[in-house]
């Protein structure tokens, strides 16, 4: 249990998928203009990550990993090179399915999350989490915790960024720095504060 908690805290703060590994920056910049939309996208990312990471774990360890096909009589088979194309297809399919289910059963939730779901399919944070999960040899339970933790960390970063951008809206920034450059420098400062959690051990 302690290991899982420590993995969660680690993926939220120290190994923050956005501020330490630079994943999902495109939508981080585009959707952090208001706190409401940032929160909506944040929840959508948490949800999709918590689902895709274990599903991709099952597919990788059940079909693609070296020796995974021994139950079908192919113990020598190593399909791990197919993981990129498989993961991206699984993510796109899950996002599509989730979108249809939400649309059918909860129009209210769809109204707030629906617009973000297609955007998430090509978000590098989602594919990146699945690839990290394979590379770090997580177990099935760890892959769920890691997915949820990465999503939470991403949401924390984008909501904080939206809040900061609201505060600095009328700041007098030098002309060339205004906009994208300024956001990157704020992100740098945020990354520094998130690094301070690295002293914590659970």
């Amino acid at each position, binding site marked *: 249990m302690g290991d899982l908690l420590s993995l969660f805290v680690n993926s939220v703060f120290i190994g923050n998928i956005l501020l330490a590994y630079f994943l999902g920056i495109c939508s981080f910049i585009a959707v952090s203009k208001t706190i409401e939309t940032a929160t909506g996208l944040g929840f959508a990312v948490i949800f999709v990550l918590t689902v895709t990471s274990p599903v991709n774990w099952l597919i990788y360890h059940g079909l693609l990993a070296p020796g995974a096909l021994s139950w079908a009589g192919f113990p020598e088979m190593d399909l791990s090179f197919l993981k990129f194309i498989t993961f991206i297809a699984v993510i796109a399919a899950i996002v599509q399915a989730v979108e249809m289910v939400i649309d059918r059963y909860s129009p209210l939730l769809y109204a707030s999350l629906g617009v973000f779901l297609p955007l998430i399919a090509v978000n590098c944070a989602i594919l990146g989490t699945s690839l990290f999960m394979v590379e770090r040899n997580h177990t099935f339970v760890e892959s769920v915790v890691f997915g949820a933790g990465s999503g939470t960390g991403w949401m924390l970063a984008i909501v904080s960024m939206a809040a900061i951008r609201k505060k600095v809206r009328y700041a007098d920034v030098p002309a*060339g720095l205004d*906009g994208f450059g300024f956001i990157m420098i704020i992100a740098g400062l945020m990354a520094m504060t998130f690094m301070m959690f690295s002293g914590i051990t659970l």
Partner: protein
Amino acid sequence: MHTDLSHYKEILIKGVWRENPVAYQVLGICSALAVTVKMSTALVMSIALTLVAAFSGLIISSLRNWIPSNIRIIVELTVIASLVIITDQILKAFLYDISKQLSIFVGLIITNCIILGRAEAFAMANNPADSFVDGIANGLGYSMILVAVAFLRELLGSGQFFGFSVIPQFLYDMGFQDMGIMVLAPGAFFIIGLLVWLKNSLPGVSHEKK
């Protein structure tokens, strides 16, 4: 038919400088920053991305008249993902150490906004040769920023260039120190921010407001 060289030159300049992917279109920095601690990884990543961009442009543009428009994103992603798998296998075979250091970031070329963006915006509407040149141009524009960031991070962060120490010893004796922050994540954010500022301040570059 545009076969004259000036036409290709125009596409190249547009991609490399005037509409430079990272600074102007604000695309594709997802995978750009994590590999910029060292020049060697940044350079290999740049070459990989440029080749994938060029060949995905070529293939998607050749297929553009046969791709039904409602499944075009899936077709584009499949083409790009296949090219990335080939790239990853080549890197594992010939540059194993660097492919280990690039870890998952070669795979993330699939979701790189530059590649899919150019496939959508350019390759679906132009002939294969133009799309190939456009892919190279956008790849080079991206490489320029990536290598610039890597150069500054490696120089300031560990005093090296391609792994060789270049800061003379007497500077260290006088009290100069490597900036530890540069090899960590925040350093990359700061450098990108400052590079965008520099580029926006140069004449002849229109910049977007927030």
